Structure formats: C-alpha cells, structure tokens
C-alpha cells in the first residue's frame, strides 16, 4: 500500500499544454503514471502528448474518470484552478505552482471547508509512490519502492534524502512534498495521520524548516497519536531572523519559527533527530533495525 497516489490513480493535468506542464507530464507518463486527461481552457478537443485535452475540469472528469489533478497553472490563475477542481469534488489536487498570493490561498482554504478534496502544495514537488505513480516533478530514478514514508516542505533537499535512503536499500512507501508556502493545503499532521494508518509504512522521515508552526503541531501528533517511529531534520538553524529564505513560508518572525524550537519539540515527542542532513539516511537505517 501507499498513500494518496497508487496504480489506481487516474491523473488529470491542469495546465498540460504549458512549458512546465508538458515537460513534467511527459516524465510522469514515462514513469508509468496513468495520465488520462489534460485541461487548458481554449484548447479543449485537442490532444497533447497523446492525452485528450478539455476546456474544463468538469468535462475532463466526466469523460475520463480522472481522480487526481496535478496543477501547473501560472500563479495568478492557480487558485482559480484549484477551486475548479475542488468544485468538481476531485479527491486529490497536487499543486506545483510557486508564487500564489496568500490571500488567494485563504479563499481556497475557506472553500475547502466541508468538502472532500485534499490539496497538496502549492509550491511543492508533488507526490510519489515509487513503482506505482509519480504525480509531481521529482526525479523518478532516485526512488525505490519500500516501507518508509517521506514528508517534506522542500524539494531538492528531499531528493538528497531520498537518494540517501535508496542507496542504503531503504525503499519508500510514498514521498509527499507539502510545499514551502505559508498556507499549505495539507500540513505535516495531515500526512502523518495517513502514514500512521497505512499498513505498508513502517517509519516516517520528516523534513521540516524554519517558519510557522507545522513542525510543532507535528510534534504534538507524534507524541500522542503516532506509534510508528519518525526521523526528523529541520533546515535553517543558521537562518537569520526576519529574512525569507527562498520559500514564502520560511521566515523567522521575532522568536517564532526558529529551527531550535522545532527540533526541541520534535525531539521531546520522541522523534529521532538528524543533526545534519547527510545523516538522515543512516539515522533511518538504525531506526528500522530496531523495529
């Protein structure tokens, strides 16, 4: 098993005809993902990369039975695209787009209340269940199917960690990039819940960073609800306060959002802390050996 995406995922790509959309859709197809539809308003009725293109998400879902959407829509229009997908009741939306205004995401979250759709991202690498489905922009080859769940706010740092795991022979059940924005669609806690319930996941690697409180909330969850071991690394110990470190959500304001605070709480909750990012693989190996 895995979480969020698997061999039953029928992927729809919003923004399939754009540069990024085209490039990564091709990579997803090559990986074996079932890409069943694309949506680009104005290009309905055409075909792109061998995939039928529709004007609306509604039509695409009705005609192809798509059950997940991968978004490459430009930032000014992305929130509207997410709303369109939520409106149809698609179970999963994975939004890659970076640079969506915060107030647009406030609207999205408001609209999500009482709805069944789960949003991953924005500003994320996507979701990957090795050997089953790649719904994102991560490099396929570095992954290996297995029993460790990975959750991260970062892209390339996750690739580094995943390739450490793979080179040690540790496979992954699912890798989820929740994204670097201030208001992610899903939080660490949301994904930890799924991994805790997933029979195939034996341990979880969590890659956090400065800014916000999602790691602190994760610590609470790990402390009270998690029976599976968690290995954690938090990036940004050396980041100066008041500076946005690349990601919109990665900023220390006053004393809030510091890496030290997050590490302290995760450690107290029983997570194994990797003090340096190149030790995450070995730390996970040790944790698995103790199971």
């Amino acid at each position: 098993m895995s979480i969020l995406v698997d061999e039953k995922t029928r992927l729809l790509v919003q923004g399939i005809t754009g540069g990024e959309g085209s490039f990564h859709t091709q990579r997803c197809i090559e990986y074996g993902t079932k890409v069943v539809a694309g949506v680009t308003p104005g290009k309905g009725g055409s075909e792109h990369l061998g995939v039928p293109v529709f004007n609306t998400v509604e039509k695409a879902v009705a005609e192809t039975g798509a059950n997940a959407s991968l978004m490459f829509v430009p930032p000014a229009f992305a929130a509207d695209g997410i709303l369109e997908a939520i409106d149809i009741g698609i179970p999963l939306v994975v939004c890659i787009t970076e640079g969506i205004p915060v107030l647009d995401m406030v609207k999205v979250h408001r609209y999500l209340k009482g709805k069944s759709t789960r949003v991953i991202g924005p500003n994320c690498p996507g979701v990957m269940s090795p050997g089953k489905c790649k719904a994102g922009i991560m490099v396929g080859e570095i992954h290996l199917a297995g029993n460790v769940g990975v959750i991260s706010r970062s892209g390339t740092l996750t690739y580094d960690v995943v390739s450490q795991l793979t080179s040690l022979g540790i496979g992954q059940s699912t890798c989820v990039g929740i994204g670097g924005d201030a208001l992610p669609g899903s939080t660490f806690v949301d994904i930890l819940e799924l991994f805790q319930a997933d029979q195939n996941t034996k341990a979880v690697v969590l890659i956090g960073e400065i800014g916000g409180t999602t790691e602190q909330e994760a610590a609470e969850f790990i402390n009270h609800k998690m029976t599976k071991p968690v290995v954690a690394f938090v990036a940004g110990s050396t980041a100066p306060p008041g500076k946005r470190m690349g990601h919109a959500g990665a900023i220390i304001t006053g004393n809030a959002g510091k890496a030290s605070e997050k590490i302290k709480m995760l450690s107290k909750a029983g997570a194994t802390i990797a003090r340096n990012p190149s030790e995450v693989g070995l730390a996970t190996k040790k944790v698995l050996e103790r199971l």
Partner: protein
Amino acid sequence: MKVHEYQAKVLLAQYGIPIPRGKAASTPAEVIEIAAEIGSDVVIKAQVYAGGRGKAGGIKTANGPAEAKKAANQLLGTRLVTHQTGPEGLPVSTVLVEEASNVARELYLSILIDGASRLPVMMASEAGGMEIEEVAQSAPEKIFKSYIDPAIGFQPFQGRKLAYGMNMDGGQTGEATRLMTNIYKLFMDKDCSLVEINPLVITANGKLLALDAKLNFDDNALYRHKDIQELQDKEQEEPLEIQARDWGINNYVKMDGDIGCMVNGAGLAMAVNDLIQYCGGRAANFLDIGTLNNTERVVNSFRMFTADSRIKAVLVNIFGGMARVDVIAKGIVEAYEQMDIPFPVVIRLAGTNLEEGQRILAESGVRFTQAKDFYDGAHKVVEAAKGVAK
C-alpha cells in the same frame, strides 16, 4: 515587501483611518517649512525599514523652527541603528514631520494571516506602545483576537468584542469598529501580510488616531499592485541583495560568514548553510538559483561571489531535478572564462544529467575540488576557507 511609515499612513488615510497632520521631508529646509505650516509642537520621525526607532533616538520632538532644524540635522543623512537593524544601521534620507498629539491612552491593533486557522486575524490590546511579542509573554490576557471569515468579511460584533477588550467606553466602540472595518478592507484590497498600528491612540479629546503604522505586503501578490511596488525604497535594503535581484537571482540573502554558496532549492540551500556551520565554517550567503535552466544565473552567481570581498571559498551544491547538472556545469565553465576567480571552489553535483555535467567540467580544465556528497562538500569548503585564512 516593506514600506515607510509615511507611505503606510497615506494608505491608511485613503481608507478613512485618522492619522496625525503631517508630511514627509528630505531636507532641513522642508522640515522647517512643514513645522511652520503645522504651527504647534511637532514630532520628527526617521523613516527606516525597522522598528525600535524611539529607543534608538530616531524620533524627536521640536517646538519652533530652530528646534525643528536641529532635529532634522541630527537625523537626515545619518544611519540609524536600532535593535532590528544590525550594527551598521539604516540610512535616514526621509523624515516624517507630524503634529504632536495629546495622548490619553495607547492601544494596539493589527491584522495578519493566522497560519493555524488560515484566516485573517484582527488583534487588539490595551497594552499599546510596546512590542506585541512582549505583551504575549507578560500579559497574554490583554490580547483579544477576532478571526475573520473572508466570505462575509469583518463584522460589527467582532469590532465590539475587540473594542470592549481594549476597555473602550460605549461611545468609542462604534468609531473603533468602523476603523477596524476599514483596516480589514485595506488589508484585503492591497494584499497586505501585516497592518500594525502601534500605538493606536485615544487623544485627550477622545478621538482615535493611528500614531504609528507598519504595513507589509505579500511579495507574491505585488504583480497586481503596481502602486505598492513603486513605493519600494531600495536604499533601505542590503546592497548585495539588490545586486543579486538585478542579476536575476531572486533568492539571495546575505549572511555573516566567508563561504559563498550556490545551491538549487531553498531547503537544500538552508541545509547547506547549516552543514557548513556544523563543519566549523560560516556561510556568506544563502543562494538558491532555482530551477531555470540557463547558464546566465550560474555565471551571475559567480559574479556575486567575486564582487563580495568577504568570500574565501565557494561551495556549489546541485541536486539536479528540474535543474540539469550539465547546464550548471556549462555555467561554471563560462564563469571561469569570463572572470578571474581568486578563491578555491568545491563542487558537488548529483541528479539529472550528472555524467554529462562531470564530463563538461573535466574537459574544461577548470580547477576545482570535487566533493562526493553533501557532507564531503561542506567539510572540504570549510577546510579550503581555513587554508586561505592562514
């Protein structure tokens, strides 16, 4: 993005929020003129992108043209150091000259996005004039919050709750609610990330007045607010960070060490800086080149390093995903062709098109130290920087 207090107050006034009578000035002559126009006692406030100005001597009162001139001379053309600026301070090129107010009570009011509820939250406190973080520590019961549903907007009952929370009397709550409604409107219209009025004062004759104002804006939304973009004062920002942006490197932050870093991805870039410190060195910058596949940004990153006299060694750490290693390698070779690179360079490459990238570097004859992984790269660059220091 930040703006100056005087610019924030112009926006507040546009939304019907009362502010003291006053104007911005950039010369002592202008200061005297505005002070004369106002007639009474004036307050002269240094305009810098930082708080803590009062304690740092950046706010002065003056009675009459002679005192106004003296205060103007003490502030204009200097650099103001506050607890938020760092030791080098920020340049004072503009001051705000305002009518001095007769203050009866100092309150606090702000609005921002709450990460947990993902809603705008209006916060009010009767403990105005001090930093809200301090109030949250010492007297959290004095902070009142209203979470706003964007579907229906700010509601009068929320205003009353906050106004009574600030111990206003019945006559003031209506005015306070109107003011809060307008602040909410400003916040939403202009894509603010923060509107903070500290202090919001009640004057001796019972009127509400925004005595200070801090406005921050969501960088991701600036594309739809050209008027706000134009307010940016580049002089208030770190010159190296301005330079980086001009060269197309949007994710650059100056740090206080001597090791230059070029990384793809923000999380990885932060982790590289952490690892350098773990290995006993200090990074001179955070630099995420992003995922754009062109060599120019790589060349410009090296331009940044050669322009930065602090740099003793450079670490390039690339994990190719969207970014391709061969393109990065070409960029490095171009940088060596275009400029004299006086410092040792350690390179760690992994991911998409690795072999091609390694071949390009090997065949170019460029001198560099190869690192086999993340840790090895950090370790080697710290050693290299120490070697240069000796």
